[in-house]
Structures are given as C-alpha cells and as structure tokens.
C-alpha cells in the first residue's frame, strides 16, 4: 500500500532559489576561465538547473558560456535494466581543450555522472571536467565527488529525491 504521507517537500520556492543562488555564487567565485567554459546539463534532471546556472553565470560575470546537454541512456552500466527512450546528446561544438562544468540536480550513486563523463569523452578531450549538483544525498557507490554542491542532505535509501525547477513553483521533495 502506498502511504501518501511519504511524499514530503524538503525545500520549496525561496529555499530552493537560495540553494541555487549559493551554488551559482560558488561557481562564479571559482577561478574558471569563463570564456573557455561549457555548461553541460545531464538529461533530464540537470537540464533546468544548467539553464539557470548558465543564466546566473551570465548575469554575474558577463560571459555567455556555451551550453550543451548529455543523455546517458546509451552509456549506462546497466544498459538494459531500465528501458528508456533514447534522447539526444546536444553538443554541437568542439569540446577539445574546453573546461566543462557538468550539472545535475541530485547526486546519489555517482553512476550517472560516470556515464555522462563517458559520453562527453566521445566528443573530444576536454581540458577539465568539474561537477556541480544541487543536492548531494550521499550513498555513493563509485568514487565520484562533486566540486560544487548546493546542499548536502542525508536521505535513507528507500526514498527518491525529486527536484522540480522548470515551473514557477520550485520544490524539492522526497518520495
């Protein structure tokens, strides 16, 4: 039986905006060469966040960085365990010698990021790859660590964390 009370909003609206602002501030403060930076969202969860970060970096530094998206479906370490529709990786430019900022909403096992790096490298050899996440919920299964984190929270394995940023009503909930 599904207990509806299990859905619990952890952060909403202003709280979420604050976490995003803090994350963007850390990124802006870091000594990136912004003219060489590409902001890459991991589909689907990282898309809205990477667009927001792109916007905030532009406001904060004046640099209109290139942006792209990676779809990791074909790079999963369990290709066929979860049947997903293949979506597009959108990287319509040369990434050789570029600095890449990978962006995702939640980091958990770290496997998604591993797959995303694998996908990126098929497009060339970036100079560096850094990782920004909105929520680090712990529970890593492979040695991957974000460089920029919005918020660290401990959430038991039995829950999923859902981040909604695309609509006006932003929230982060555990399900």
């Amino acid at each position: 039986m599904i207990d509806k009370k299990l859905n619990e909003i952890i952060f909403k609206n202003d709280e979420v905006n604050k976490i995003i602002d803090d994350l963007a501030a850390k990124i802006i403060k870091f000594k990136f060469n912004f003219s060489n930076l590409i902001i890459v969202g991991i589909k689907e969860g990282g898309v809205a966040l990477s667009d927001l970060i792109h916007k905030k970096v532009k406001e904060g530094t004046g640099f209109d960085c290139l942006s792209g998206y990676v779809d990791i479906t074909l790079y999963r370490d369990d290709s066929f365990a979860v049947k997903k529709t293949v979506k597009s990786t959108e990287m319509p430019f040369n990434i050789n010698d570029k600095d890449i900022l990978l962006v995702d909403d939640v980091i958990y096992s770290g496997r998604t990021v591993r797959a995303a790096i694998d996908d990126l490298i098929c497009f060339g050899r970036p100079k560096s790859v850094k990782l920004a996440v909105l929520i680090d919920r712990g529970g890593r299964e492979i040695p991957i660590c974000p460089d920029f984190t919005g918020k660290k929270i401990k959430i038991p394995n039995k829950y999923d964390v859902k981040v909604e940023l695309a609509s006006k009503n932003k929230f982060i909930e555990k399900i």
Partner: protein
Amino acid sequence: MSYVKKDLISINDLSKSDILYFVETAKEFKKISLQDIKKVPTMRGKTILNLFFEPSTRTKTSFEIAQKRLSADTINLSISQSSVAKGESLSDTILNLQAMKPDAFIIRHYESGAPFFISNITNASVINAGDGINEHPTQCLLDIMTIFEHKKEIKSLKIAIIGDIFHSRVARSDIAGLSKLGAEIYLYGPQTLMPRFINSDNIKIAGSMETAVKEADVIIMLRVQKERTSFYFIPSIEEYRNYFKLTSEILKLASKDVLILHPGPVNRDVEISGSIINSGKTVILDQVENGIAIRMACLYILLGGRHS
C-alpha cells in the same frame, strides 16, 4: 513506449506506433554516426551472429557497422565456407550456433520464411535481413525514415512503387509499412511481375508508367532481379528498359518535390536513368545512411526488450 517482441520478422508484426517508435529511436542513433567517436558502449558483451545465405553489400555492411557502433561482438558466418556447404540442415546449423549463446541472429536467406523458422527454434533475437520474396522489414523502416526526413506526414502521400513487385521483398514490406501509415500506393510493372491479389483500398495497380508517376510524392524504383526472374517473366532487358525505366521525361509528371528511392543495388539505365542518379535527384545515399541508424535502433529495441 516499449516493444516487447524478441524478433523482427515482418512489418506486419508492427503497429503504426511501433513503426514510429523505431523511426524516432533511429533518429537519435543517427547522431552517433556523426560524432568524432562513432561508438557507444550500450551493447558491450552482446554477441550477434550475421548469417547471410545470399549475397549482400549494403544490408550486411550496414548491420555490421550498426553492431560495432553499439559495441556488440559480431561474427559474420560465410555460408559458402560453413558446414551448410557440407549438407548440414538449417535447423542443425542454428541449434549448434545457439549452443554458443549468441544474443541475436541476423538472417538473410533465399527461402521465404527462413527467419521465422529460425526464430521459433532459438531464444536469441532474430532480425530478418531479407528472406526470399517475402519481406525486408529493416529496409521498409529505413525507407519510412528517409521519407519522414523530407515529408511531414506519410498519410495520403501518393507513393508509386515500380518494377518487379512480385519478387520484391522490399515492395512487400514497403507496401505493408506505408499502408499502416496511410499512404496511397500505386503499383506498376510488367504484368507478369505484378502481385496476384490486392485486398486493400489504398493500393492501386496503375495502367501505365505515366499514371503511376503522375503527381507522385514518392517514387520507389525496384531492382530487376536477374537472379530470381531468369528472363521468363520479361522478354528482354531492352524491352524492360523501353517500358519500365524511370526517365527524366516521365519524372516531369511527378510532384515538384518528388522523392526517388531505390533499395539498391541499382541497374543503371535498366530501371532508372543514370542521369537521374547523377543529378542528385534521388535519396539513395540517404537511405544507406539511415540504414545504419535503423539497424542500431532495431538491435537496441529488440535486445533491450523484456521478453520471455
């Protein structure tokens, strides 16, 4: 959206939405062939056996490239050098290969129904890469993909299929697939090479080359299959050329932005004027390019499905 059958034997096994799902998936796979590194790790550890009992350039190469771009391990069995040449039966050959635990068989066979037969004796996925005069489902899917790249809708397009309809597995699959998407199909060819029965309102037999081509949105020219017709069906190649060749003159009757497809290999100046091909008016090479994407999509969908 998902597709749960383990095999792709006939276009008739696919619903309209299945066809669109294969084509949509293929669009994403097409991009992989444009990357610097034209390979994804999706099918690591999968073994695929390509069994071609009939000559093939395009289909065989295209399947093999598709498999390699998905990181599968592929084995091509050269039938002339296999035990089939020593008289081993088809089912014994398959059962022995099955014992080597492949994940899929790609079958091209001169007998209609061979891939279906094989799909019933193996639990690996089977893809029909053309069987006798029966079907060539991946060709149909790549034709549909190619048409969709130029036309928004297939519904109510006038599509002419011209040539040896009777012996053409491409025609049989194309007619089935394009009908599901609502096309108006006009068939034309020598009387002896026309289908015996047509039981659908959207398929018409044209009385002349002109009727078939007039205002057509898509023309699919078929190859004269010398190996199957052995000239009993047509008096001579010269006669075929005179009455059934697509020439620049006849082409003027078609719709202004007509698409010309041909499954290959082309007999230049038999079924189609070399000048039409040279002038870049056909999408034959697009078909070849899309062939890889469609075959990647088929492998991904079939091997990834949860079937018992």
